[in-house]
């Protein structure tokens, strides 16, 4: 952002009352490092998230190699991993460490901090019309907690006994007793430290997002005029605020069990195995309750922002209002509330009381209804649209596709009876990678392509973006779809190799196919990385509103100013989805354009037009 070329439009804005937003030249440190500007913090979150994502992906490729070629020696691995891959053979303990850190990185560092952190920070102030977050200082602190947490996690990769290896769900006793697995020594301690810092970051961020959305909306920005992105970020923050403290409590008790000889989660374990102190009286299942009380809302913390982004991108690029705006808000609320009473579906076979299982099953299947409504609304938004198939739009379509595929398998897993044979198999791996992994990553990608001009003032290369999309999309299906069949054959997850099982030998080919697809998908991310970093300085300069979008962020100048708008903050006169409104000159009417009495959509002249077109195209009606 070295050169400031002012867009003609803003020069005259600048003449308006321009309170305290003229800054003296900032130092490098206060501008790029300890920045309190939400746009810079957003970029910090994004780039840290991308780096973590690259590491997480690289890990998945390494263990995919192991799964596909369990008997082969990859000497180059020894170069990377040292004694963890002696003679090119991955160590089984390190395999478990890799999947654990991969899962942790992807779930928390990429799709919670990287996704929510980036887009909540960027879009909340810009889309509600605020100069910055409620507390820029807490916001900065939130990033630095996240940064420290990332560093601690990465550092744990280098400790002698290896990083945490008990799975990203870190169930005790495995995670509590170093004698059970080497990763539960120092590695697990660092994992917990990292997690506690992370929770700090999530809470600081969350409070800020909520306060900002509730208190700092510009004039005219009623809650029912908020873009769906903001609704999604708001509910995400609420979910985080209510559930992360529970994980914090759970983690602290685990710290006690590990370091101070308590037995919150330990029962009937002899002294010899438990660091010299006999442990009894606790319950390993208690930890699972605490973990999943966060864990399930967590998947919506991941998914809701992605869905919010998709709503915005699909509406803009279909040049149509989002279908069923109020139903969309209602389903976000329903999902958020229900997500607190379904955590037990991760624990159907822990031996819980069958009646309790029934209750959790009921809740889980009910959640499918608002999810279905959201899907149908996306489809209806695209129906009769005027689709601009930009990379952002393609990624949004990809998200909907994954959301359907992964959501439907959720109906199997949410059914306690069916879960008996599916729990912890590759069916689950396939399910959550589609509905949470792929869908949310695609939402994030969609957001990056869509708001890149807002983030960096330049455009990403479109062709590279499209190629990136198709390669990633097809690779993701090739990787995760076949895994369902492995799961249905009973292949368990978190297995270092399946070679000891005659029944699973039939999957050798499939495993190799999956790994090759994963490698291609991984290579496609290089295209993205190059495009991302190249365009930052060399990309085409963006115009102010490149996608002809209605929301407020596009009324702010391309260049970044502390305070966002040079002049007065725009006022809002309408909802954000006035696309292709009959009678309007353009196919979009930004929210800050005064309303000429046309806001009630169903009372308007277009209704006749709707009816006429419905007759012509009866696909849905």
């Amino acid at each position: 952002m070295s050169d400031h070329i002012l867009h003609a439009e803003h020069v005259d804005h600048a003449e308006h009352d321009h309170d305290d937003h003229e800054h003296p030249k900032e130092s490098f440190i206060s501008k790029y490092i300890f920045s309190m500007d939400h746009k810079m913090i957003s970029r910090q979150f994004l780039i840290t998230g991308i780096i973590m994502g690259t590491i997480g992906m690289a890990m998945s490729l390494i263990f995919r190699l192991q799964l596909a070629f369990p008997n082969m020696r990859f000497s180059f691995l020894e170069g990377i991993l040292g004694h963890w891959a002696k003679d090119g053979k991955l160590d089984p303990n390190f395999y478990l460490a890799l999947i654990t850190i991969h899962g942790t990185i992807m779930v928390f560092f990429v799709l919670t901090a990287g996704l929510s952190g980036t887009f909540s920070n960027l879009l909340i102030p810009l889309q509600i019309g605020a100069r910055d977050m409620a507390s820029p200082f807490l916001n900065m602190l939130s990033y630095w907690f996240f940064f420290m947490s990332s560093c601690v996690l990465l550092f744990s990769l280098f400790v002698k006994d290896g990083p945490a290896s008990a799975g990203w769900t870190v169930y005790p006793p495995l995670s509590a007793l170093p004698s059970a697995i080497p990763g539960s020594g120092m590695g697990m301690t660092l994992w917990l430290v990292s997690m506690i810092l992370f929770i700090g970051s999530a809470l600081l961020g969350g409070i800020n997002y909520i306060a900002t959305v509730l208190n700092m909306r510009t004039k005219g920005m009623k809650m029912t005029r908020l873009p769906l992105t903001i609704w999604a970020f708001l509910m995400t923050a609420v979910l985080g605020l209510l559930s992360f403290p529970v994980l914090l409590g759970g983690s602290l008790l685990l710290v006690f069990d590990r370091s101070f000889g308590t037995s919150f989660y330990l029962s009937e374990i002899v002294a010899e195995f438990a660091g010299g102190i006999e442990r009894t009286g606790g319950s390993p299942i208690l930890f699972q309750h605490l973990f999943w009380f966060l864990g399930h809302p967590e998947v919506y913390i991941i998914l809701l922002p992605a869905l919010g982004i998709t709503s915005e991108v699909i509406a803009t690029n279909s040049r149509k209002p989002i279908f069923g705006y109020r139903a969309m808000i209602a389903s976000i609320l329903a999902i958020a509330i229900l997500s607190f009473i379904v955590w037990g579906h991760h624990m159907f076979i822990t031996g819980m009381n069958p009646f309790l299982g029934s209750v959790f099953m009921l809740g889980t299947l009910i959640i499918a209804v608002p999810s279905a409504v959201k899907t149908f609304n996306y489809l209806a938004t695209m129906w009769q649209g005027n689709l601009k198939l930009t990379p952002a739009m393609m990624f949004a379509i990809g998200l909907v596709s994954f959301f359907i595929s992964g959501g439907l398998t959720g109906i199997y897993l949410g059914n306690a009876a069916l879960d008996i044979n599916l729990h912890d198999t590759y069916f689950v791996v396939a399910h959550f990678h589609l509905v949470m992994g792929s869908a949310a990553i695609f939402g994030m990608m969609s957001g990056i392509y869509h708001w890149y001009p807002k983030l960096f003032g330049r455009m990403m290369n479109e062709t590279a973006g499209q190629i990136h999309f198709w390669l990633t999309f097809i690779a993701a299906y090739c990787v995760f779809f076949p895994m369902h069949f492995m799961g249905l054959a009973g292949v368990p997850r978190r297995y270092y190799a399946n070679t000891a099982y005659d029944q699973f030998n039939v999957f050798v080919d499939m495993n190799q196919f999956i790994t090759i697809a994963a490698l291609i998908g991984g290579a496609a991310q290089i295209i993205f990385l190059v495009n991302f970093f190249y365009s930052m300085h060399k990309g085409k300069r963006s115009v102010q509103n490149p996608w002809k979008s209605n929301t407020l962020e596009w009324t702010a100048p391309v260049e970044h100013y502390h305070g966002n708008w040079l002049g007065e903050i725009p006022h809002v006169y309408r909802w954000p989805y006035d696309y292709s409104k009959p009678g309007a000159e353009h196919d979009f009417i930004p929210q800050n354009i005064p309303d000429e009495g046309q806001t009630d959509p169903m009372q308007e002249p277009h209704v006749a037009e709707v009816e006429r077109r419905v007759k012509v195209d009866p696909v849905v009606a």
Partner: protein
Amino acid sequence: MKISNTLTKSAFLLVILFSVTLSLVTQTVNAGNKHLKFNYADCPDHKTKLAGLTLNNDKNAAGDRIKNTWIKNFQTIVKNGSNKLKIIDLNKENTSTTFQYLSVVQVKSLKALIKTESENPAFATFIPVIILQKVMSEAEESLGSKINWLLIIVVILLIMVIFLVISILSRISDIQGKPAINWNSLNSKFSLAFILLGMLAVVWEFGAHSKLTVFNEGPASEHGINYDNMFMITLGLTGIVFIITQGLLFWYGYKYKSDGKRKALYYPDNHKVEFWWTIIPAVVLTVLVIKGLLTWTQMTNHSNKEARRIEIFGYQFNWATRYSGADNKLGSHDFRQVGKINNLGIDTNDSKAYDDVIVVNELHLEVNKPVLLAFRAKDVIHSAYMPHFRVQMNVVPGLPTYFSFTPTVTTAQMRTKMDKPNFDYILLCNKICGAAHYNMKMKVVVDTKAEYEKYMSAQTPLVANKVSKPKAVVLK
């Protein structure tokens, strides 16, 4: 009465004490043999061979060197009397990594095995093999570093090519003032192609891979029939939704692409449509919920008093089974005794345990006879998963869990049905539990009544072992 009680008790204690000493020689040696075999199961050369065989004659198979190194290292350790950590260090070189993660008990049993085998005159013969193998492994190194370099160069080249393509493309579009490629129309065609080819691929995959799943040969248990029904109903309903929604999504992507002339339809709401597409999924899900609840309630009903009780005991990284014997009652247990005298921590004061039978790493069930499995774990959470029976339950230290079911197809019948003469049912560990989690499995055999009785009579109950013939034990 009292005297006989004390007598049985002291006999029981005697037996256990005796078995402590004995264990080093017989029981433990056998267990050691089993561990060795077990840990080698993933090495194709070792499926059938035991250490003893290796020691006696077979010394040229490639994989044997590992075993030999192991045995040699163990031998050193037995001599020096050092501990588990040392063993791990000594064997760091070895490819057979699973061996590094043995529990204390397993190490003990292996030690015992080595000790007896050391006294075997054939023992001296395999040391040269180790030396030979050392030389072989050095040849592979140089190739490895070459691949390394190749990989780095390929990645760098790839990045450079992408850079180049991107900058050329953006030059072109800059010069022409419009995008180099019309992605809008291309993408709409790709959308159509994707959904058509994708659906074909899905159909193909169902054809090709369904037969690899456990649904192909049908359930081997009574409740499994309901399970499979439930599954198929869900598959049918979700399948329909899958085809319709995915189809529409990409069809719209194809059909409604912008052509520069059309304007989109302003269509923000339609309460009627929204009502129906909320109600219909809700009704469908209600059907699934009701059917699911019925299936679940039936599957989790463990109240059958007739059921034969068997305990499944999980520990890093193996399974043991304990049959409850004639009284169909499992003797109680005390975790403090685990790993000291008896691996399973059977309570020596409980007479119900006397007729219990413990077998490591094999489970026999009788066909059409309800069985109640009681699960117990020693160290961390495991999960007993028997996919062919649609059975799974977590095995949690300190928290007893149960699963009852009725096997309906014998191993022999299943072998004929699948036309696989080597097929065996398995019980897998399905909860991450440590380095050899992936190898923690147990063979499950479903016998006919006659076979089962024969099998059980060949086993020795805990106490009858030394006191009298198994069938003659009189309890109480």
